[in-house]
């Protein structure tokens, strides 16, 4: 228990905030790319309404 308390380093929280920022930014960028790509896919592969189809 004492060893455990000795290992407590509160400043590590601040030091590693960078990972939180870059991690959240990274995940929003990746997901953002996927969202845009999915929209493009949907638009590119959407079936035309019957009225627009030629016989």
């Amino acid at each position, binding site marked *: 228990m004492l060893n*455990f308390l000795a290992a407590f380093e509160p400043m590590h929280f601040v030091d*590693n905030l960078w990972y*939180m920022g870059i991690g*959240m930014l990274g*995940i*929003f960028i990746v997901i953002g790319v996927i969202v845009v790509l999915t929209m493009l896919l949907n638009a590119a592969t959407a*079936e035309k309404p019957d009225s627009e189809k030629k016989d």
Partner: protein
Amino acid sequence: MEVLYQNLLNLDWKMVVMWAIGGILIYLAIKKDMEPTLLLPMGFGAILVNLPLSGAITQGAEEGPLSILYGAGIANELFPLILFIGIGAMIDFGPLLSNPVLMLFGAAAQFGIFFTLCMASMFFDINDAASIAIIGAADGPTSIVVGQKLNSGYIGAIMVAAYSYMALVPIIQPPIIKLLTTKKERLIRMEYTQKPVSKTTRILFPIFITIIAGLIAPASVALVGFLMFGNLIRECGVLESLSETAQKALANLVTIFLGITIASQMQAEKFLRVDTLLILGLGLFAFIFDTAGGVIFAKILNLFLKKKINPMIGAAGISAFPMSGRVVHKMALKEDPTNFILMQATGVNVSGQIASVIAGGLILNFFLH
């Protein structure tokens, strides 16, 4: 005569405590129906490996079957990856493809992982902290893969926490959602129009996701790839039999071995430590902040949107699929029995599955050297 009671002398109180923990897991699985496919094998395994000189695990030069299974399927991450094929085959990305913007909630709900990483780094070295933080992904296979790749010394506690909290989603999430939302917000109705999704999109989606994730977070490509491979089998339309096998037989087989093999890491001397309690606490912390991240993101969006979003759906962005989506849906129905947000919540929940794997990949990118 002595031979009959000799082994009893090797019994110590910590083993008995582990039997009790195993018993609790079995109770939760059977009586409370909490993730029984995993908690029951884990509970039984916890008893099995904590019998004095248990032959189920390696004792000296004598190899035990659970230790062999651990080396063959978990230490090399094979079991969780194979399970991902089954999970991928089970997931219908339809609601998400129909409304792709929902994926942003999946991203927001990974906040708890990164916040917990900072918290855990105050107590543990950075690789262990990252492995503990990923418990917040609410995704057992991802937790195992990240913990193993980062060579965490706490893999047993991490796996138990990850799977136990997945089972506890219906208990953990509602109070947090209620705390962060007003009744008026919980009553918000969301229009749902099912837009048609072409078969081509359904087929190309898993392929593109794999490529994008592989390019940005190469360490996650096995996780994402196996998940998406399972989904491709489901969506391609020509592998019905394989899809069914992946969803049922394959997933069930791996789950049986996964649960009981995880228990091989629940030996009393490894498990009953102050660190374990702290890991369980930090895992819960990650779960809470993941839920909060999704809800708060929805509330922020509502400041700018004309058509308001029910902020509860943000909570479904954790990847505990499909429990989290159902929990949110049930909460909406409890507030107003005519308010159906199941499709939106399911879409967000599915996006959480993708986002948590990508979060795991990013974590590996940061710390795997």
